């Protein structure tokens, strides 16, 4: 069961990611990205990250991507122009990236020895209570700093997006 779930959802994730890069209209890309995020949430569940899976769905897929879709709809800008301006980038870049992927896979397989098999329920410390306890004890300083960062971001977004006052 774990194997099927992993294979299916990793395939969906990679397919959606490729679709994100290939599609020319931003809204198609945005929906593909939502697909990636949803399948990653399922993989998080397999890895025992219940809370983080739900946070992924609510924060990433539900809030951030809705903001993207909203902006795309608001600008109503059409599809990207056809044609590659830098053909050498394609001819050089894709083999290079594939090679890089090969090297990384090789390194991961070779260096990370004795990686445990992933079984559903193999790690159960990712429930909301555990995450919350760690967040408000050991990580309380980063948590507060991040909240200030979010406040600054809100102010910045408001300043940037407001209408000019004459």
């Amino acid at each position: 069961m774990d194997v099927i779930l992993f294979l299916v959802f990793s395939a969906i994730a990679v397919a959606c990611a490729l679709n994100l890069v290939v599609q020319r209209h931003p809204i198609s890309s945005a929906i593909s990205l939502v697909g990636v995020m949803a399948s990653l949430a399922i993989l998080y569940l397999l890895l025992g990250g219940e809370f983080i899976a739900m946070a992924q769905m609510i924060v990433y897929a539900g809030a951030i991507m809705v903001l993207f879709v909203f902006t795309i709809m608001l600008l109503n800008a059409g599809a990207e122009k056809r044609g590659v301006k830098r053909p050498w980038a394609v001819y050089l870049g894709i083999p290079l990236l594939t090679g890089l992927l090969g090297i990384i896979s090789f390194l991961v397989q070779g260096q990370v020895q004795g990686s445990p098999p992933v079984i559903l329920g193999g790690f159960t410390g990712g429930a909301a209570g555990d995450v919350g306890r760690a967040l408000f004890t050991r990580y309380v300083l980063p948590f507060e700093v991040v909240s200030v960062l979010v406040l600054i971001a809100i102010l910045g977004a408001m300043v940037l997006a407001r209408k000019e006052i004459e």
Partner: protein
Amino acid sequence: MNFFILTLIKTGILLFIFMTTLAYLQWIERKVLAHIQLRMGPTRVGPFGLLQPLADVIKLVTKEGMIPSHVNKVFYLLAPVIAVTLALTSISVIPFGPQVEIFGVTTYLQLTDLSMGILFLLALSTLGTYGIALAGWSSNNKYALLGGLRASAQLISYELPMALAIAAPLLLLNTLSLREMVEAQQGYYFGFIPKWTVFQVLPLQVVSFIIYMISGFAETNRIPFDLPEAENELVAGFHTEYASMKFASFFMAEYANMTTISFIAVLLFLGGWHPLWPAEYGSDYVAPLIFFFGAAILLFHGLNPARPKDKLFMPPFGIVFALVGVLFLIPALKPILIPIFWFTGKVGAILFLYIWIRGTLPRFRYDQLMNFTWKYLFPVSVVNLMLTGLVVALMS
């Protein structure tokens, strides 16, 4: 019994009941609205218009499902699917009653209990935005686009006070699983005031409940927050270009979302399937009494008909009501039916509130809508959450 077979049976029963309820919710809404406006509502199809939903379904299914030529086909077809799938999925985690034994099988009246039940429901409701936004965008129509934009802005804005209003009772209940949530609300203060979340830390949870209900109305695009489909400004808003089953999907999604909001309200604030007063004061006899009373009225009017056709229709319905009332008195069925009665009764009351408000209130203006959430609802819910947290911290 085999887990898969049991789940399949439960899914089948639940799906049938839920779909029928959604269809009849429409009939109830039309009847109630009509009586608020001193009309009769549907009367032609079947007795009291009871077959109207069936007629509507047949009409919508057999209608030609045409696709306008100027739409973005992929997203145009995807949007209703997203909307209706997400809306119907939420039913799978709702508990309708406690653990029961039917024909020797012990099971919960619930499809599955997630340890993150309430977060799962929140995730589904946030993802529901995509259905509406994509429908508005892909229709390639200015009214639809405006409706979609309004819907997504409104949903993002009202999600915040809603999440904060949900967080306050969660502090008291100390669980995210919907079943444990209801079990934590069991019992009575002084033997008669139920330990529902609304009645705990008294004024605070009433405030969260009200904030939750207001945001719930906005989340489901109902009057007074139905700007995404304001018919006198935007024709029909995001579903202007939709017809036949695709339109029906949006319609079904809206009603399913309404019931989900009511389910969450009942589970989180109103004690799920726990009765309003304890069984030793006779709360078990409320259900049969209501049904017998209905049966008595129907039989009386059937035997003294005001209109000639009442003689035909009312007595059979009266007998059905009486039989249902008798079911509640059978000791073997009692532990199953009484919790379901209280649960559906509370959900029905909230759904009636939805319809009542639709018949009563005018629509907000768009700037009023945004001001209302950001300047009033959001600060109030933040303060409410902080006060609740303070009380919980002081009590523990």
